[in-house]
């Protein structure tokens, strides 16, 4: 006996949603994936940067990819304050790539931070990568992609498609982008706030993050 194939995209991907105030997303095809699919995305805070906070949990695998160690360093250095963006690529995990991989991940953070107005000492962005392990990040494509995103005034948006495309840009073997947005009211003041969740993952999934 076998179960029938399911149209998961139609069932699990929303067609509209409300997103948190003061955030924008951008995504493009930087050519890291073979099929010209979206593979580079940025989420940035456009609200007062002094109010920006970031936190993260990471894999407990002893072999940690370069973006994991670099993002952890950013959080340790900033204590999560003033981190206003995250950049992610799919197609290449930048994992098990040694010192070169570390340099590539650091350079990615530097490039994004500069575009966000940082001087050289400030890291304003986290970095993530997903895809094939054991291959170097194609930095030429990544750098071009970052330039393209930040030099195109129309690249960033806060509408549904901008968020959905960001969710698509992080996918690998996923059959649908995973995006959920919920609104809640504060019990004290009745103010409405939003939490949006975006994820990718379909295989190599049994996380134990800390």
């Amino acid at each position: 006996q076998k179960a029938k194939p399911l149209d998961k995209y139609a069932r699990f991907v929303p067609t509209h949603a409300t997103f948190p105030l003061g955030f924008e997303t951008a995504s493009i095809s930087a050519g890291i994936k073979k099929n010209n699919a979206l593979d580079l995305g940025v989420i940035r805070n456009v609200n007062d940067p002094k109010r920006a906070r970031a936190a993260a949990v990471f894999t407990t695998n002893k072999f940690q990819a370069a973006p994991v160690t670099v993002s952890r360093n950013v959080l340790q250095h900033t204590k999560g304050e003033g981190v206003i963006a995250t950049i992610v690529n799919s197609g290449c995990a930048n994992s098990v790539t040694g010192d070169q991989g570390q340099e590539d991940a650091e350079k990615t953070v530097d490039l994004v931070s500069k575009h966000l107005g940082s001087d050289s000492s400030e890291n304003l962005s986290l970095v993530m990568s997903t895809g094939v392990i054991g291959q170097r990040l194609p930095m030429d494509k990544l750098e071009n992609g970052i330039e393209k995103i930040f030099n195109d005034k129309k690249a960033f948006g806060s509408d549904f498609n901008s968020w959905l495309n960001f969710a698509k840009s992080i996918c690998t073997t996923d059959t649908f982008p995973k995006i959920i947005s919920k609104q809640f009211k504060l019990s004290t003041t009745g103010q409405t706030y939003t939490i949006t969740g975006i994820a990718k993952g379909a295989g190599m999934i049994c996380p134990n993050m800390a």
Partner: protein
Amino acid sequence: TLLSYLITDLPLSSSAATSSLKYAVDRSFNCISVDGDMSTNDTLCMLSNGAIDNQMEDITEDSELYDEIKLNITSVAQDLAKLVVRDGEGSTKFVTVKVINSENYADARTIAESISNSMLVKTALYGQDANWGRILCAIGYAKLNDMRALDADKISVSFVTTDNSEPKELKLVINGVPQLNLDEERASQMLALEDLEVLVDLNTGTETAQFWTCDLTHEYVTINGDYRT
């Protein structure tokens, strides 16, 4: 690899963001399994910016609002984690493994994880085979701290439907005794459902743990046989 983001316009302190994220991940993404493999890149990050009210003070762990916010963050994280399981490579079933009445939480969680990671349990779920023996086997080799949570004479195992059909529960093992006259027709009906719950009642305490997993299919091998090339 799992990558995930939680983005909110709440004004959170760094410490509150970190602690609420940790609370949420332990009850969501750290309780899922597609194939039992852990990536080198798994990351869950949260960004907050206070944009709902720039005059509002940061919410800290001591704030009156902290607990409700923590629970709402957890709720979003759980829904997101379940979507990841639903998209498990080649998967056709979404399975909740619930371990109840355990002497301690850690062992309940270990048992739930062991069942969720068992390749043979997962292939049986794909084949719609009510193979309770494989579930017991996975419980039996779970790496428990001690054996106080697991008493072979007290354990009960059931399939529970997630639709409204009756009987809702099909008992496979009661107090350690296998139900050899299993209603195979009902078992087939239940296992044909896309969503299913495996309920393990340890009857040794009061703690509960939950994992979400999926079946293992031919398609999983197809996808992963040539992923790199």
